[in-house]
């Protein structure tokens, strides 16, 4: 809010921007078909590869990474708990169940329709999670993520059972495990809606910071708390449903990035939102590039790489917190 208190130095900003730019270029350059960036302008085939595959893939990673990191930040604000995110608290699982059901009932439905149904299911699932989380004793902060994991597990199990019955387990895997290898021009553009959601989050950034102070502090400062909770739920659900439907869920981005940014810069969302978005984009992009290189020329899905990397970061955060308190 107050500019002088929280503007991180220009140098950190420049370094972060350069880092993201390097990842962007790397992501364009790395892949099975050789595509020397220097020849892009002279070689029409290379240009075609860039525009149809590499650039969409890179943009998809950036959009979903930034979106999921912001979704995690909002979810943590709503639950007033640092250890929840869409992938571990039922949002992603609800979206997966929703898209599975619409695929079963209306196999011919277009992707936007399926995404919409997934978003509705995510909204319902997350609302139930939040209503329960608000009833848990605040003195036991680990109950909220634990409840979320169990709750998400139950919904995920229901989705698995339904998929198994309908012989759709392979489809389910596409939604539950993020993978950018199938991203082509014309098949990822819905993800731009995630950018719109991030812009809305930017618009209400101060309100999000105040909401993290609690319901009473929010009302005292004239914020319509119930309305803001609804807006937050919609943002989280839409972003998650987009990720699930277009590229598959990517775990831990929403957990790791907001926590690291909070540790480094605090929780004034107006000042940190850009960093959370950039951090999410960078982390997902880096994991996707790693997934393309580890078993080159074969690929490891980004969801798997992030499961390992994010899990390690999450454990580190938990233990650091213990040492800190």
């Amino acid at each position, binding site marked *: *809010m*107050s*500019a002088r*208190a*929280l503007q991180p130095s220009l140098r950190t900003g420049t370094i972060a921007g350069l880092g993201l730019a390097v990842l962007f270029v790397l992501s364009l350059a790395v892949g099975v078909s050789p595509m020397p960036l220097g020849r892009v302008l002279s070689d029409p085939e290379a240009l075609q590869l860039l525009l149809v595959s590499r650039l969409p893939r890179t943009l998809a990673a950036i959009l979903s990474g930034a979106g999921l990191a912001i979704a995690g930040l909002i979810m943590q604000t709503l639950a*007033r708990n640092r250890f929840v995110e869409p992938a571990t608290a039922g949002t992603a699982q609800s979206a997966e169940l929703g898209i599975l059901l619409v695929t079963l009932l209306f196999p011919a439905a277009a992707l936007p329709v399926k995404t919409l149904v997934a978003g509705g299911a995510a909204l319902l699932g997350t609302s139930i999670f939040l209503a329960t989380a608000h009833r848990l004793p605040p003195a036991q902060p680990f109950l909220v993520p634990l409840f979320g994991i169990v709750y998400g597990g139950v919904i995920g199990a229901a989705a698995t059972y339904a998929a198994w019955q309908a012989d759709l387990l392979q489809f389910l895997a596409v939604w539950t495990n993020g993978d950018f290898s199938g991203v082509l021009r014309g098949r990822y553009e819905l993800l731009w809606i995630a950018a719109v959601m991030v812009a809305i989050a930017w618009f209400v*950034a*101060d*309100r999000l*910071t*105040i909401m*993290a*102070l*609690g*319901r*009473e*502090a929010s*009302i*005292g*400062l*004239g*914020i*319509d708390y119930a309305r803001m909770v609804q807006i937050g739920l919609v943002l989280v659900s839409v972003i998650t449903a987009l990720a699930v439907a277009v590229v598959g869920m990517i775990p831990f981005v929403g957990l790791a990035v907001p926590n690291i940014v*909070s*540790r480094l810069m*605090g*929780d*004034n969302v*107006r000042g940190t939102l850009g960093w959370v978005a950039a951090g999410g984009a960078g982390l997902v992009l880096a994991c996707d590039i790693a997934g393309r290189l580890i078993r080159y020329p074969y690929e490891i899905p980004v969801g798997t790489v992030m499961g390992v990397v994010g899990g390690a970061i999450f454990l580190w955060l938990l233990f650091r917190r213990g040492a800190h308190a």
Partner: protein
Amino acid sequence: MIRIENVSFKHRTTPILTDVSLTIPKGGVVALIGPNGAGKSSLLSLVARLQPLQTGAIDIDGLPVDSTPGRELARVIAILRQDTTVASRLKVRELVGFGRFPHGRGRLTAADHAIIDAAIARFDLADLADRFIETLSGGQRQRALVAMAFAQGTDYLLLDEPLNNLDMYYARELMRSLRSIADGKGKTVVIVLHDINQASAHADRIVAMKGGRIVADGTPTEILTPETLEAVFGFNMRVETIEGKPFVLHQL
């Protein structure tokens, strides 16, 4: 003026407040006293629309608290609840700055910055302004929260046991600050106090509550008598007069 008319409030089936009516004119310091569970905090949160009214009516300067937009009320009345916890990593200056939110919706003007700086100076927070709240002691945190409520710049300020965690020096400083904003700026301060002698030394009026009702209402000299105090708190205590003010020796 705060008008509370025939307010009753129940938590499920337990009555918390029963037919409370109270008028607090503009300007001055009003202390709410009474034993634990008397309904003091509930009354404050109803006035500050933190809980919905069940029966009765409350208005502040003619604005009914249950139908006036929250944003408009936030420019008229500020509340600091008891035991407010700040789990966010915010710096003191940022937290105090959010007190200005109802005015600019997050956009801070030069005037806002001046008000924030004044609040920081008034509550002796200048050295702590760039520290994260979580690194402060309980008393320092309490002062930062009071400064935030003060920065909201409202005519009415409701404080629920703000002396919690404060040492004697800062408890006295806070009461003197409240006194001076009431005298100098014509603000109305309603404060829940357990230290009855702070009420005697700094309040214009004491309202005593017990069992969800108002049982006594008057100046410190009228209220702080052995008879009234025994009726409110249930035991006899000595009252001595020093410089014309009654002081209660409840420790004896």
